[in-house]
């Protein structure tokens, strides 16, 4: 790739008609992303018919704009009302919403927009310059590597390494068990479906996520006599972060971006895993890990950067190998094929002008998004202040509408309501919520890769230690599990030494 092809791609995406469709994409994406339950998969799938008959580059710019816009938009409802717009925005609620409760909603929105922009831009650079290198790395990931990676994600982010891991462990195992429901991918046998056709495909994680975070938040709000967030007007000076504050979070953005891009490149891992991993790493390296969850800016900046960097990452295997890196990329693959393009190793040679146009369009879309998401922060805060007293019924209704249109079934709505109640009880009793969702999301991939690995090795577990990448990840997993044990042994020995 030479810089000239990239510049010609950027110029192609700047033509007025294409720019217009890119703008439509990012605006619609931001709105769709902010609605509970509707993520980029739904957004692109819904608006795909709009691109039929459109010139290919304009159509693709619209779709890529929606994809990137959803990633930006998902954080708005997470930060302002503690209801994640999509599963990738769950982690944003951990420190984003506490910042809102502290009266720093504007700061949280702007900081997360800047982190998202940084992640996207680095993701764009990675996509433009490192596609070939990373696609070679991605194809080295077979079932043993995936199993080791999924285990890494579960151990490092589920909270089982915390001081009181018991409840986190219970919740993680419950989430994994729920992920086992439905059709078995190897034998086709039905598992834990109890003869209910609704459970043949298992339990979708979106209604569980919205129930456990959104509905339980609504229940906890209505339990208070006065739950309005904005009792006082937020001064305009506090709407935007200071340069010093952005700089203090720059390291977190870099780390989140790196994790997001790498995880995005791996087919099937997706933005949700990236955000959980980024948050886990940030908490682990922090000098004050106990403060995470109370409105720590690093806990917001890192996952947001990871979320957006994963977009560029997920497009790497899509463009270079024809393998989608996420559910959204899978729909984009369909769109590319419908437009007569053949994603794979020859795509850059056969349709280079269109692909570079899309890559250039990604840069343009991000510039539009960062402007939209920083300039309009006062508007978002004002809007939420106006509707704050009516949020309980309106958010509940929006959750129901959003979940119903997932599969056009009321079954998912009931699942959401049940998990809303369960989530509320869990909150009150001190059970962590995130591990349940994380385990439900990762459960099937974890089991699939475990079983595929053991079938490959004819039942031998040594397969996880014979492949270099898998071995490194497995050793990291073992070290993570043993570290707290070694720490407590050391502490005990030190205590005994002091006692003597």
């Amino acid at each position, binding site marked *: 790739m030479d810089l000239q092809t990239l510049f010609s791609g950027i110029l192609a995406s700047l033509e007025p008609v294409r720019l217009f469709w890119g703008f439509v994409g990012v605006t619609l994406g931001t*709105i769709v992303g902010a*609605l509970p339950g509707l993520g980029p998969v739904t957004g692109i799938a*819904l608006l795909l*018919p709009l691109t039929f008959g459109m010139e290919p580059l304009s159509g693709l710019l619209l779709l890529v704009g929606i994809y990137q816009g959803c990633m930006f938009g998902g954080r708005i409802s997470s930060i302002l009302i503690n209801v994640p717009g999509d599963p990738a925005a769950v982690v944003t609620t951990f420190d984003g919403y506490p910042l809102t409760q502290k009266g720093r909603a504007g700061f949280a929105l702007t900081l997360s927009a800047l982190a998202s922009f940084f992640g996207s831009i680095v993701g764009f650079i990675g996509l433009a310059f490192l596609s070939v290198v990373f696609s070679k790395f991605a194809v080295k990931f077979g079932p043993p590597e995936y199993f080791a990676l999924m285990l890494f994600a579960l151990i490092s982010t589920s909270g089982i390494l915390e001081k009181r891991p*018991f*409840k986190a*462990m*219970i919740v993680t*195992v*419950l989430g*994994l*068990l729920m992920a*086992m429901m439905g059709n*078995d991918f*190897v*034998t086709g*046998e039905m*598992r*834990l479906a*109890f003869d209910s056709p609704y459970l043949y495909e298992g339990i979708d994680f979106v209604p569980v996520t919205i129930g456990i975070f959104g509905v339980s938040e*609504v*229940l906890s709000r*209505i*339990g*208070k*006599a006065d739950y309005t967030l904005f009792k006082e007007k937020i001064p305009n000076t506090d709407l935007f972060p200071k340069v010093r504050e952005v700089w203090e979070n720059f390291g977190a953005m870099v780390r989140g971006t790196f994790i997001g891009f790498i995880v995005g490149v791996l087919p099937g891992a997706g933005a949700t895993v990236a955000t959980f991993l980024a948050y886990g790493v940030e908490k682990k390296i922090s000098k004050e890990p106990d403060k995470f969850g109370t409105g720590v800016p690093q806990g917001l900046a890192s996952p947001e950067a990871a979320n957006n960097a994963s977009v560029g990452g997920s497009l790497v295997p899509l463009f270079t190998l024809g393998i989608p890196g996420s559910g959204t990329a899978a729909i984009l693959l369909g769109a590319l094929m419908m437009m007569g393009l053949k994603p794979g190793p020859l795509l850059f040679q056969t349709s280079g002008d269109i692909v570079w146009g899309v890559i250039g369009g990604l840069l343009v879309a991000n510039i539009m998004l960062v402007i939209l998401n920083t300039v309009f922060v006062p508007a978002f805060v004002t809007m939420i202040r106006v509707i704050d*007293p*009516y949020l*309980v*019924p*309106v958010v*509940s*209704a*929006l959750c*129901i*509408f959003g979940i*119903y*249109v997932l599969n*056009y079934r*009321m079954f998912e*709505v*009931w699942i959401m*309501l049940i998990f809303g*109640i369960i989530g*509320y*009880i*869990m909150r*009150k*009793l001190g*059970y962590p919520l995130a591990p349940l969702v994380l385990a439900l999301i990762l459960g099937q991939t974890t*089991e699939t890769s*475990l*079983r*595929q690995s*053991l*079938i490959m*090795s*004819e*039942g*031998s577990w040594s397969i996880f230690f014979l492949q270099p990448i898998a071995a490194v990840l497995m050793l990291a997993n073992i070290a993570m599990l043993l570290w707290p044990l070694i720490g407590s042994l050391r502490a005990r020995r030190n205590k005994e030494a002091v006692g003597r």
Partner: protein
Amino acid sequence: MLMADRLFAGFIVILGLIGLIGSWELSGEALRGGPGPGMMPRALALILIVLAGGYLAFLLARPPKTDKAFTNSYALKRQALLIGALSASALLSYLVGMLISMGLFIIFVLGVIEKFPWKKSILVGVATIISVHFIFERWMGLQLLKGIFF
């Protein structure tokens, strides 16, 4: 909190038992030495029973304490009303359609639970369902559950 904690731990043990019974007849082994469809669910159900059962046993061994988690009757009443209204409007959706039932839900919550003036409650309810109709049905082309009216 102790009683609620005990009940919830017991509930999780029951979920584990359901998982164990449900996966009992599934094969534990597949071809070529790999694990079968029953291995993971069975193992996870057992781990869940052991973990939640252990926690329940630990809670039962502790002296009884006043339950503090769910004692606020004001909060419980409002929450029960909200859950009841949500469930009723979800059921009503089959009959009158989703837009109308959700509009009624919003009006009920604002008027009855939040004690807002009725005019304001109706205005917010109607404005919300009109916005939802335009965003979901007109603009995105999504079909919400229809009833006898819409």
